[in-house]
């Protein structure tokens, strides 16, 4: 049973603001993205910058409002339609962890305040004394100590701050954790610590993850299933190991060949770069750079189809 189901999500941003908004230039950040996260599963969204993975993640917690589509949590009503109190309850069960711990923790608050400032207003608030004990326990769970409760985030290193950020996400006992590139800003030797910590937490609490990453190797190690996004669209989705061995979409193959140390040599020379998706493209989003593209790819947008059990791909050529 899937814990989070996303269907045909769409979001466009208006580049102009205020008076000029009516002459809008838009960025089509997310285009008909559909996927589902199973219970206790780690689902990864990978892609390069501007592909819409962070926007998608933020749409799930309604940091932005989607233009259309459905988000269903445990099969209940559409998250997009939730009103204030129900939305708050939903946000207690689905938590978002930011990428940069230097910017996502308020530098002027003590760690205790950082952990509990939102908890205080939630429906689960047990009072100050109990909350202090809980905060201490959670810090131990993420590898710090309760004596750190009164220190400031600036006294900690990057990896430790990310632990505090994760602890803040866990204190309300959520069911889903959305990790937005949580290890990208960390040193290589610390990445492993945080990934292992997340795995331990997941085992202990039975969480499900949506893991956003741009590093294919990290995603390939950590996730159960991976979705590859390009220019706002989901191009391919497969179990992590299958994706490495049997990638079908040309873009996925390109990504793998470009990553250093992949052992996969580059085939055709890569041309061009991703441009901001500011026009509605008629055909496949990748057609402009794809070595296999033909007239049909440029004119018609491929639908997502099942290539193998659990393996979906959006391509005419795959």
């Amino acid at each position: 049973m899937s814990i989070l189901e996303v269907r045909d999500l769409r979001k466009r941003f208006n580049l102009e603001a205020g008076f000029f908004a009516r002459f809008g230039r838009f960025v089509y950040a997310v285009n008909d993205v559909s996927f589902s996260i199973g219970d206790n599963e780690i689902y990864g969204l990978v892609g390069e910058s501007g592909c819409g993975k962070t926007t998608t993640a933020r749409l799930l917690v309604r940091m932005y409002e989607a233009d259309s589509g459905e988000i269903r949590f445990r099969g209940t009503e559409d998250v997009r339609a939730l009103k204030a109190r129900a939305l708050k309850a939903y946000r207690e069960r689905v938590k978002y962890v930011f990428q940069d711990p230097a910017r996502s923790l308020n530098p002027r608050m003590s760690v205790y305040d950082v952990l509990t400032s939102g908890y205080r207003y939630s429906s689960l608030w047990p009072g100050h004394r109990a909350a202090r004990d809980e905060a201490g326990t959670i810090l131990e769970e993420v590898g710090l100590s309760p004596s750190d409760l009164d220190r400031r985030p600036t006294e900690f290193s990057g990896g430790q701050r990310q632990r505090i950020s994760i602890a803040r996400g866990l204190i309300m006992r959520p069911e889903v954790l959305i990790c937005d590139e949580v290890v990208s800003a960390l040193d290589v030797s610390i990445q492993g610590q945080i990934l292992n910590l997340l795995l331990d937490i997941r085992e202990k609490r039975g969480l499900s993850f949506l893991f956003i990453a741009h590093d294919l190797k990290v995603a390939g190690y950590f996730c159960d299933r991976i979705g590859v996004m390009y220019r706002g669209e989901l191009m391919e989705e497969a179990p992590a190991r299958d994706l490495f061995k049997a990638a079908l979409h040309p873009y996925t193959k390109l990504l793998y060949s470009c990553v250093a140390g992949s052992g996969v040599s580059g085939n055709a020379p890569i041309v061009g770069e991703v441009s901001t998706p500011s026009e509605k493209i008629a055909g496949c989003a990748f057609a402009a750079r794809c070595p296999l593209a033909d007239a049909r790819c440029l004119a018609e947008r491929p639908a997502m189809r099942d290539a193998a059990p659990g393996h979906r791909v959006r391509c005419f050529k795959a």
Partner: protein
Amino acid sequence: MRQFGKYLAGRPLGMASLAVLAALYLGMILAEFVAPYSATTQRADMTYHPANVRFHGLSVKAQEARVINTVTWKYVRVKGLYHGVSLFAKGEPYRLMGLIPCDRHLFGTTDGAYPAFLMGADNLGRDIFSRIVYGSRVSLTIGFVATAISLFLATLLGGLSGYYGGATDWSVMRLSEFFMLIPGLYLILFLRSLLSAKMDSGQSYMVITVILSLVGWPGSARTVRGMVHAIKREEFVLNAELEGIPSVSIVFRHIIPQISSLLIVSVALSVPGFIMSETTLSYLGLGIVDPAVSWGSLIKRDISTIANLRNYPWLLSPVWFLLAVTLAFNFLGDALRDYYDPYHTVIPRPFWRFLRRREARR
């Protein structure tokens, strides 16, 4: 706080400013003790008496003087007629800080027979130094009170308008622009003239404070609004919104503390501005009125005519105090601003180092 103290140790100007301000504020609190005489004691026969405390041999004495010309009030010093000046001399009784009855003053003539004018006397024979000390009560505090009110308004309105945007922002900004459009001095005069000409000193103090704050808040409000608007997009604010924290709490418990350093520096730099504004008002006769004293009222228009200034230059003594306070606050504000500036931790190398080229060690 302690860290700032350590920082100041490396900035002599800032340290000196802090010392000066501490001395002035301490003197203000213990005004009855520091001032040898009360601010209102008049001496009919000592109009425009010059300062008479001087060294005689090795000790400090007050010399008597007599008037020789009652038109120009010129005095000559009487040779040989001295009165000893001592510390902790007996003087008029008073209540220290309103509670403890006492009659010792910081200094005075030992026998009390002749006044010791540290800075001379004014046209009614009142000791100017004492009046300055008592006047500091108004001048030094009015700056803080006005700053407090103005900063409170600026933070409240700027914070809300920066965070909410939209109609709130629009209306607050138009309001602030209205206050900014009118030249400050004229606004002050206008508001002051709306009220009755004769008010007692307490009322006039409050009225002036309120007027000054109304003129001062728009500038800070716009700055606060800009900063709040920028900080609003930071990730920790986004996270706070996701956690369901009420917006007002986000603005005042999460965002405003980020600019606390800016606000502290702003306080240090605007207090002298308000002191000077009060001085201007009182100089024009629209501020503190007799018998209450402030430094501005001490340099009233009718005192500072050219003839008076030529004959009795000590009447401008309050100006030195005003200068000292303004400079001290400005230097302190500079030190505070540099202390909070994260890029300011570089050590300036001693000059002589530049003269020697760095040699590569082998």
